[in-house]
């Protein structure tokens, strides 16, 4: 509009611009943080994944997709992917279902339920490192508590962390124990938010026990269960501390997950292979994104939002 400059801008438009400006101003701090701490590292990772390294791990020459094609043709890496998938299944499914069972049981009006609820939420207060060290003591094949108990029953000894048939399960069990506290906490809050009249109506209709859980409590916990599944999956894919402390990825690579493999390539054994490590990190990002997308696409459709 050529005549517009002479007249004052439309009050509504000006108002909107001001609103946008304000919105951007408010967003700016988080935007800066986002770019600085997510955007830059991501870009840097992509850059490193396309470069070979010198002696000190600095990018030396451009190699394009080389690291990715090397990874996809490596039997070791395929094994790492399978281990990662297994580890995720072995931690997310028992972690979420176990917490659900505990919370449902806690719904029964028994004495000391508050105490039990806090007790089950307690693992949340443990750091990964201290919990792992405690489990390492439990699992010790020669002097551990678990094998001690087994030997009283005339069983064992089992190489919980040193036998490749059990190592992944043992690390997963430790992870389940650690995640149980948080999961119980979230689901307990979920149960508490179910409207009382809903449960009351169901009870009047004669529902109790399993029926009540199946038809009312669990569906009403849908959003919480969905949230836990997504978050546990991401957590599980990123697990590092317990693997590092309990097995260091061994024996013979039986507990080497994607994250641990990234660590090994970049920092362990003085290899400084940041190129391969970055390529693996990008693969991890894609896996996490894919898992989350699938969960949103498939699972969320079945979630009932009250």
């Amino acid at each position, binding site marked *: 509009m050529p005549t517009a400059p002479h007249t004052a801008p439309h009050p509504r438009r000006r108002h909107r611009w001001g609103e946008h400006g304000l919105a951007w101003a408010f967003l700016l701090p988080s935007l800066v943080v986002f770019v600085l701490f997510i955007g830059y590292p991501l870009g840097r990772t992509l850059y490193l994944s396309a470069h070979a*390294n010198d002696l000190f791990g600095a990018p030396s020459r451009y190699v394009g997709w080389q690291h990715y094609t090397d990874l996809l043709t490596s039997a070791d890496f395929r094994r790492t992917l399978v281990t990662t998938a297994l580890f995720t299944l072995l931690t997310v499914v028992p972690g979420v279902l176990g917490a659900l069972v505990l919370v449902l049981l806690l719904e029964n009006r028994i004495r000391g339920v508050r105490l039990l609820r806090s007790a089950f939420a307690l693992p949340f207060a443990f750091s990964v490192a201290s919990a792992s060290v405690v489990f390492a003591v439990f699992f010790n094949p*020669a002097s551990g508590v678990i094998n001690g108990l087994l030997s009283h029953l005339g069983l064992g000894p089992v190489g919980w962390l040193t036998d490749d048939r059990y190592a992944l399960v043992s690390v997963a069990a430790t992870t389940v124990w650690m995640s149980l506290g948080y999961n119980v906490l979230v689901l307990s809050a979920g149960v508490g938010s179910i409207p009382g009249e809903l449960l009351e109506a169901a009870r009047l209709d004669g529902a109790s026990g399993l029926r009540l859980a199946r038809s009312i409590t669990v569906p009403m916990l849908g959003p919480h269960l969905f949230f836990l599944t997504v978050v546990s999956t991401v957590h599980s894919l990123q697990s590092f501390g317990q693997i590092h402390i309990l097995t260091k990825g061994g024996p013979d690579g039986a507990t080497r997950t994607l994250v641990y493999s990234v660590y090994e390539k970049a920092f362990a054994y003085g290899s400084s292979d940041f190129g391969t490590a970055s390529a693996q990190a990008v693969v991890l990002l894609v896996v996490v994104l894919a898992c989350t997308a699938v969960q949103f696409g498939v699972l969320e459709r079945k979630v009932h939002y009250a």
Partner: protein
Amino acid sequence: MKKSARALAALLVAGLTLTACSSGDSTSGSGGGSTDAAAPGAQALDQAGGVTIVEFWHSMTGKNADVLTGLVDQFNAAHQGKIQIKAEFQGKYDELVAKYKASVQQKGTPALVQVYDIGTRFMIDSKQTVPAQAFADKDGYSLDDLDPNIRNYYSVGGKLAAMPFNSSMPVLYLNTDAFKEAGLDPAKPPTTLAELGDLAQKLTKKDANGQTVRYGFGAAIYGWFVEQLLAESGTMYCDQDNGRSNKAGKAVFDSAQGARIVQWWADLVKNGYAANTGRVTDDAQAAFKSGTVAMHLESTGVLRGYTEAAKFTVGTAAFPKVTASDQGGPVIGGASLWISGPGHSDAEKRAAWEFEKFLTSPEQQAAWHTGTGYFPVNRKSLDDPKDKEWVAKYPQFQTAIDQLKATKPAPATAGCLLGVMPQARKGVETAIEQTIKGSKTAQQALTDAAKELQPAIDSYNSSVG
């Protein structure tokens, strides 16, 4: 005007790059090379004036860190107003090297850095350091007091690349109570792998249910022990005389001797005479301390911890040989101190050297030895009255002294110099696990490990040029 300014800037940048290159060249070729020019003389400190601060990265924890801090404080007090050593813990050996690499990239290396034995080749190739030999030659300082075997490890072409500081050796630990209970004489420890296997069988104890309550043998799956056994048998770990005569291009741990060692270990586990506690050394140590394992391989560095924690009498014996005719000996482990060249002033380099001389003097090494259990790198420390008193109190340590004295410096006992040594060690550990699991024979597992390592060696050597 603008144009000429830009040209000027370009010239300046080019000039800076050139000088950077040339200064880099003058300090390259370190590690026994002829770079005496890079080592400043004593006057560097006097000319500097003020306090010269030396950043010192180390990996010592617990009791060892306390003793080190004590030594640093003592040195700083004696050089007040002149030198100040700022000791900084930078994580375990592996973590420290990772951080050191980052510091090279960012051109912010510490003036003095403690690096583990198997990082020696990398440190030489990094071309970031001034060899200790250069300082010693400059000063006419004698390095003859250093233990010859220890000196041998850190020397290339007869020249000392780094100053040894904390040295340890593996010994065979014995639960003497278990020996007596089994009707065996702890004064007659096994000397070969075959004897060790026999005794392990005799020392293994089962309860009424057939459950093993005590294993005859148990050690962490730690590649270091295989390196030691190979050295004991006089066998090389990598080619070119363990990388001593020329840069190593190939790992040769997959020899018949290597396979024999790994197979022996795996068979003991499979037959139920040895506990398999995995790679984590703490777990293997716990098994010995609790009495679940009667014979055990570990470093001398844990001796004091064992005598304090164990409820039985801890005995030590020489690290076993593979066969009775073996002529080799143990490889000295531990770490050494490296002085940084590029990016550091002459005063800093000089101050770091003064500190190195202090740390390796007879008196300080005696304090270090008695405080930590590390082996004194200075031979004269063992004559120190305080040190003698300590060895009398912990007679188990005499084993290590005798063991080292009996070892003649040779390429096999000098240990392998390989840029990717940490990865080689990891490969051997995987091979042990595979053999125990039974998925491969020892020979196959070691051959595969050597094959998998080859690309890493090649790419390392090509990046070093």
